């Protein structure tokens, strides 16, 4: 600090707020004024709600206010004579205890994780292949790019509505095409049975419940998700491919490397920062997916094969006005996302090669 203040030329003696100092202060003031609108909005509508949401999750929330704090004892039977148990019982974490006992919550988490675990590798795998192919010297590259990206920019509700009809069991073109090929028809979005259960029953094998697999309705939604996001992932992958220096390929080719070796030994490792970014981004994206799942889920379907936690939070709030409970559910979901992101950082982050 001392060195810096020595370097600053002495201010004129006419006053404290003059010359350089005044200019600096003015600049800072103007800077804060510039930052105020954006940060004001972000703080009020993004930051503050995190804390407010936690408060709501502790409450029995009625319309617009905390009617009373939701004690744990409402959902767990505790020995009131035990002072420790009584203290735990009076904690305002009732909504969380309710959530952990709610089979719907666990089921929704399972659906969410399944949705993510299938759609992320599917999306990224297809996108990587498309990006790699598009990166070859091919004709009509811009046309392919634009067309593959198109699903990503169109209105989700509109394209999901169209897909919902494509999947229609009796009139939809997908079943019509299967029929034309001599294949069996499916109920798609209206099918709550698991995919292994369907295959099993076709083969005359009765599978136990735990082996039923994800519902066909969820798989149908995963196909749609893939259709939407492959274009985005491909675009990002292509930008990543563009960052790999061409000399590396040239050098490897001189050493007699095959096309597959180039891909395996150069493309994959040097693309890993991009892949890592996409992995984190798409996992988070699948966890908060809502619009298309909501639109494509039929009003009545047994077993809720497509009810993700995001959908459950929405229903608890929108249909039942359980604000406190849905706020608690959203914190549970956040904890899961955070844990998964940390695990991904540890496991996948180690394999990322930064050139």
């Amino acid at each position, binding site marked *: 600090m001392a060195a810096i203040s020595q370097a600053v030329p002495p201010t004129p003696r006419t006053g404290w707020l003059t010359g350089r100092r005044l200019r600096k202060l003015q600049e800072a003031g103007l800077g804060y004024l510039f930052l105020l609108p954006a940060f004001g909005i*972000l703080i009020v509508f993004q930051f503050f709600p995190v804390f407010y*949401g936690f408060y709501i999750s502790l409450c029995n929330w009625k319309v617009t206010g905390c009617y009373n704090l939701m004690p744990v004892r409402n959902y767990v039977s505790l020995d009131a004579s035990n002072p420790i148990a009584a203290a735990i019982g009076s904690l305002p974490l009732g909504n969380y205890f309710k959530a952990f006992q709610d089979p719907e919550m666990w089921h929704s988490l399972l659906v969410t994780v399944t949705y993510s675990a299938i759609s992320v590798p599917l999306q990224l795998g297809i996108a990587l292949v498309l990006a790699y192919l598009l990166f070859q*010297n091919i004709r009509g590259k811009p046309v392919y790019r634009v067309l593959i990206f198109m699903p990503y*920019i169109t209105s989700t509700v509109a394209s999901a509505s169209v897909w919902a009809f494509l999947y229609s069991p009796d009139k939809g073109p997908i079943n019509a095409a299967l029929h034309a090929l001599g294949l069996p028809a499916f109920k798609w979005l209206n099918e709550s049975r698991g995919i292994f259960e369907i295959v099993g029953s076709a083969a005359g094998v009765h599978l136990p419940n735990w082996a039923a697999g994800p519902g066909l309705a969820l798989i149908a939604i995963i196909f749609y998700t893939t259709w939407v996001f492959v274009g985005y992932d491909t675009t990002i992958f292509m930008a990543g491919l563009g960052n790999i220096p061409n000399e590396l390929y040239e050098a490897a080719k001189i050493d007699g490397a095959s096309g597959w070796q180039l891909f395996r030994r150069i493309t994959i490792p040097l693309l890993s920062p991009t892949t890592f970014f996409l992995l984190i981004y798409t996992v988070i994206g699948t966890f908060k997916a809502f619009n298309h799942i909501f639109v494509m889920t039929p009003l009545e379907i047994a077993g809720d094969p497509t009810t993700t936690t995001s959908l459950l939070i929405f229903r608890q709030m929108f249909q039942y006005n359980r604000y406190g409970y849905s706020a608690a559910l959203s914190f549970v979901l956040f904890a899961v996302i955070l844990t998964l992101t940390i695990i991904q950082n540890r496991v996948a982050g180690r394999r990322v090669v930064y050139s």
Partner: protein
Amino acid sequence: MSTRSLASATARSGGRISWSRVAIYAVLTMGALVAVAPFLYMLTTSVKSLGSVIAGKFWPWLPLGDEAIQWGNYLEAIRRTGWDKQWQMFLFYRYAINTIIVTLATVTGVLLTSVLAAYALAQMDVPGKEFLFLLLLATIMIPSDLTIVPQVVMMFQLKWYNTYLALIVPFLASVFGIFLLRQFFMQIPRDLFDAALIDGSGHLRYLFTIVMPLSKPALVSVALINFIWAWDSFKWPLLVTRDSNMRVLAVGLQQFLVGEGGTNIHLMMAFSAMVTVPVIVFYFFTQKYFTEGITTTGIKG
């Protein structure tokens, strides 16, 4: 301009057909077809009669069939949304106007707040701006599901529920916009400002007369991507509006799908087409900026 040729070395070896090239084109064409097919299905179905849709006729028009192109489906879909007494028009038009109001207001607001904030972060001496930048980074980590309940509650408390304020104000700032513009503004050398300062220009004038014209591609990217997001928004408008005349197109379409459109497939497709086509046309003219905006933030994000 790509001069790379990874697997294409074989392609140029002589005049014979390279099967690997054929395979590449086949896979890409398949991908493009799958991407486009649902749109083509939507457009063709939107001008068929309901009878042809149910009968599964692929091409009911001349020369294969005798049906006329049913342009009337579009008017019928608009009519079936119902009547808005307040503004004396079909509700469809009301949905469209609401969507345009919300989209325009959001995009303009985001541009303004992002330009100012990004400029302050990139080019000005503001104490504590590193901290503010970290705050911005933290905002990205907040998942929307975490804040949706308190946000809805706040709309009730502010008495913004079922008004345009609820649809617009919370979205007047965009972390993505600030990031992208900050990155762009940082590339502008500070010497340029010092030169402008000698000419008697202040920060505000410098920003609007020099920085912004220099950053046109970045501004266009931010505007376009926020336009797509605003046009696409569905969950929030569904949560914070009650009256049918406050709906945006996406919510109107979903309500139509649950009601009339569930059985009248041809009308549902016409409605979907009216929501989708403007965006697609817009995209075709501006796609270069989309790709730029998405890749710069994507890679560095």
